């Protein structure tokens, strides 16, 4: 029940605010209020989350019983980290960007929160698909109405690109449930039950590819990344934070939940292909980031590069790497959200995010420089940050899998150090330009919790990892069994 409240409160509040044409100050205050409310509920849920592999806080209500479609939601170790991030990051972003005066932007950010939460908690493929698609609409409006540059075009491009993937997934879902129906005589969309579908090898590969296309576009992995840079460049900050910190992780989550949940054996069979693709796109995105001079683009590519690392960790699929993946989802969400907020603050003051025209900030704004450097470095994972622990775990896992994979993964992390250091150097240091206003208390109010969370997860990762350990063990056992065969 509590999860349903968390899914639908933002949506209903958004609709309410839209219909009553509320004034901007009221809208901002209510959005923040709703998001803080959701965050407090999430903390409550986290405290009550038992460290075990089963689904918790479950509710299951028939929706279209005729087709075996249920409103089935629940939380387990797979979704826990992203669940917490959605609930915690959204209010912090709202605090940081509290001066944005567009009603639509705020309302859409509420609705997209509902969509992400729903997709994250859905245990029924149909429900998942519903939320997966609907969360696209608010983003479509956010970019198209409040974006920059050729926003109409890029908004359409992003939407059409993503829906292409979704339709491939739809066909896969339908094929899967029809096969299940033919074999078992009844329809079901339940992810756990669909595991029992018997498919030929070829069918499995096609269905796998249909799902993978949808998730790959969302993350994005090479070669489905062509929407990425333009979309980030023309999006308003809230949309970028949602896209990079939350929605891209949803692609990872969906692979974890659906591909490994339903097609475990074919996923492990194709793992070496995905891992090579992931490693290649890691390096490729890192190189793109090194060669860009637009801050938004650099961090868009750096985020894509790290997401590929998460993907690699996911497909390595042993217990160490899966722990790393769970933690990395949280840590990367925190770091990217923070860094894009910093970029927005920077853009507000300098009207430019071009590396060549920046510089000399450290002299006039020490606090800003401290936080910028901290968040930038937390992305590469310096010790004491959560990125460090998770990268170490994934790399350890990849060495367990194969030393070559481990070696390449380590190299590409090194590559990301190159451009992060370059960014810090060119943004903060250099000749002093005009005065740069330091961080305000309101901005600190959102950045300090983000920094503390990153440190907390970096110094005491076990409090979190112990909660997901049983789930991870459950999944990695299946992979052990597969490789033993």
């Amino acid at each position, binding site marked *: 029940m509590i999860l349903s409240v968390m899914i639908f409160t933002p949506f209903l509040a958004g609709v309410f605010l839209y219909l009553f044409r509320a004034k901007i100050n009221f809208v901002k205050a209510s959005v923040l209020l709703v998001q803080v409310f959701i965050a407090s509920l999430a903390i409550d849920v986290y405290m009550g989350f038992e460290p075990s592999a089963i689904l918790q806080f479950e509710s299951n209500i028939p929706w279209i*019983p005729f087709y075996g479609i249920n409103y089935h939601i629940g939380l387990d170790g797979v979704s826990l980290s992203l669940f917490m991030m959605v609930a915690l990051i959204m209010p912090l972003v709202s605090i940081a960007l509290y001066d944005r005066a567009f009603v639509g932007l705020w309302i859409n950010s509420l609705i997209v929160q509902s969509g992400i939460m729903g997709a994250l908690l859905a245990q029924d493929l149909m429900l998942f698909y519903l939320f997966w698609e*609907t969360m696209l609409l608010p983003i*479509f409006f956010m970019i198209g109405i409040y974006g920059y540059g050729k926003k109409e075009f890029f*908004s359409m491009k992003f939407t*059409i690109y993503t829906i292409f993937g979704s339709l*491939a997934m739809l*066909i896969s879902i339908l094929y899967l449930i029809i096969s299940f129906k033919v074999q078992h005589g009844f329809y079901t969309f339940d992810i756990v039950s669909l595991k029992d579908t018997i498919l030929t090898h070829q069918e499995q590969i096609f269905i796998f590819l249909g799902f993978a296309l949808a998730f790959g576009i969302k993350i994005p992995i090479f070669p489905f990344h062509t929407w990425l840079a333009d979309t980030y460049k023309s999006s308003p900050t809230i949309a970028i934070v949602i896209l990079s910190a939350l929605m891209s992780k949803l692609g990872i989550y969906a692979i974890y939940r659906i591909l490994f949940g339903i097609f475990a054996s074919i996923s492990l069979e194709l793992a070496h292909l995905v891992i090579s693709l992931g490693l290649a796109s890691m390096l490729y995105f890192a190189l793109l980031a090194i060669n860009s001079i637009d801050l938004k683009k650099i961090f868009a590519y750096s985020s894509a590069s790290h997401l590929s690392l998460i993907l690699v960790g996911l497909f390595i699929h042993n217990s160490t790497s899966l722990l790393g993946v769970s933690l990395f989802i949280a840590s990367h969400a925190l770091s990217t959200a923070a860094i894009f907020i910093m970029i927005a603050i920077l853009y507000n003051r300098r009207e430019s995010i071009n590396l060549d025209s920046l510089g000399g900030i450290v002299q006039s704004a020490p606090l800003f420089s401290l936080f910028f450097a901290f968040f930038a470095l937390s992305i590469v994972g310096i010790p004491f940050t959560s990125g460090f622990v998770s990268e170490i775990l994934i790399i350890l896992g990849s060495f367990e899998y194969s030393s070559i994979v481990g070696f390449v993964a380590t190299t590409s992390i090194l590559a990301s150090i190159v451009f992060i250091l370059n960014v810090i150097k060119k943004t903060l240091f250099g000749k002093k330009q005009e005065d740069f206003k330091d961080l305000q208390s309101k901005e600190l109010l959102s950045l300090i919790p983000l920094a503390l969370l990153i440190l907390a997860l970096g110094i005491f990762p076990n409090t979190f990892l112990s909660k997901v350990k049983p789930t991870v063990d459950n999944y990695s056992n299946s992979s052990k069994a597969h490789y033993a065969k």
Partner: protein
Amino acid sequence: MLNNIEIVLLFILAISISLVVFSTKLSLQKAYNISLITLSASFVFLLQDLGEIFSTLIQKDIFNSMLIYDSFSLLFILIFLLSSAFLLLISKEYIFDHKYFKVESLIFILFSVWGMILLSMSNDLIVAFIALEIASMSIYVLVGINKHKLKSSEAFFKYLVLGSFMGAFYLLGLTLVFIQSGTTSFIDLAKYISTHEIEQLYLVIVGGLLIMATLMFKISAFPFYAWSLDIYDGAPLPITSLMAGIFKISIFSVILRLFLSDYISLKDLYDPLIILASIFTMLAGSFLAISQDSIKRMLAASSIVHSGYLLIALSSIATIGDSASYSLVFYLIAYFLSSLGSLGVLSMINSKDDVTYESLKGFASTNPFLALMMSIFMLSLAGFPSSIGFLGKFYIFSSAIESSLTPLAILGALTAFISIYYYFKVIASMYFHKNISVLLTYSNIKSYIIIFIISFLVLYLGIGSSYFTYLPGTNDLTEFSKSIINSL
């Protein structure tokens, strides 16, 4: 004793005829009110037949088994009555604002609805033809009522000539079928086909093909789709809505009845043809729809694509029967709601020129309500989840996969993907741009309410849960579609 449907048929007929008689003395306002009341009273009156599955022959002594009244036809009759009443309500201002709408136009609308009702009940090839012609003839005239506009007259002649020409094919086909089988009744025909070998059925097969050609023409399927764009475009908006939405559904009602009784045993012969028609209808419609500037022409072209989706379901009927037919019925309901809504919103825009993507720019800031409603209908037509259009597509694609026509489902998904482009472009035009020209809209509160009701239905039937047991939701609609198929 007359049963309900007979009373309704006689009632509408009597009203129409008396309207004809008094047409010179009545004002348009009065005629409008009378037609509206007739349609909605008949709708409410027939609602009491809902519930149990039933099937009765109409006046068996006179008509033998030519007309059949069952749950299946009841659903369609209710759709015709409801949507034509909605149509009149939504386009009230349009009708009164355009001087070419006369009392006669309303009479023709009543007659066409009457024809469609008969069509959905017909159980005999000859009756089906007569009903089809009653409806078509009325619509031919309605297309051309704006006689001062060249495009409208062109559309009228095109439709009249082509329609009558294709009607002749039907008659020829009917003759061939009758020569061989000696019957025109659906039931006897089905018996005849199932008891004879293919070698003895050549004339029936050829005749069936000819009849199919006429029906394909009416639903603007490949290769008979070329007329539809100009004619939908030339007709006044409410009439386009009547043709593209309501009339098409009535054709599908007779196709469904014909196919489920007669066609099943000839499936191997006809199926490849329908599959081909479906593929090319979807492709041709998408191709036409992308390249349009005017919203009305785009909706007309996209209605061809929707016929293509419906043909997917039709081609899977042969293999899996029931589940394909109720997916078809469900899709018809979804399509009728969304097309009625979208064309309705268009007809509420008071503009001399065609509404184009360009002139729609900034519509959301001048008229946020209609823009929101239009977006909902566009999403539903595009098959975006959380709308009824999505569930319709979902059922159709799954029935295609179930009858192992997976490539057809994939193609359907591809055309749905293409449709995202032209439907989302409407939303993008309305929301993403500053207004350049302010579009005036009619401000009739009743039309707004009807548009709101339709959009509510589009969303509610898309996500409505059976959790609220007192409100029939999606599941009930699905089960209902299934039950009416069983009444056939």
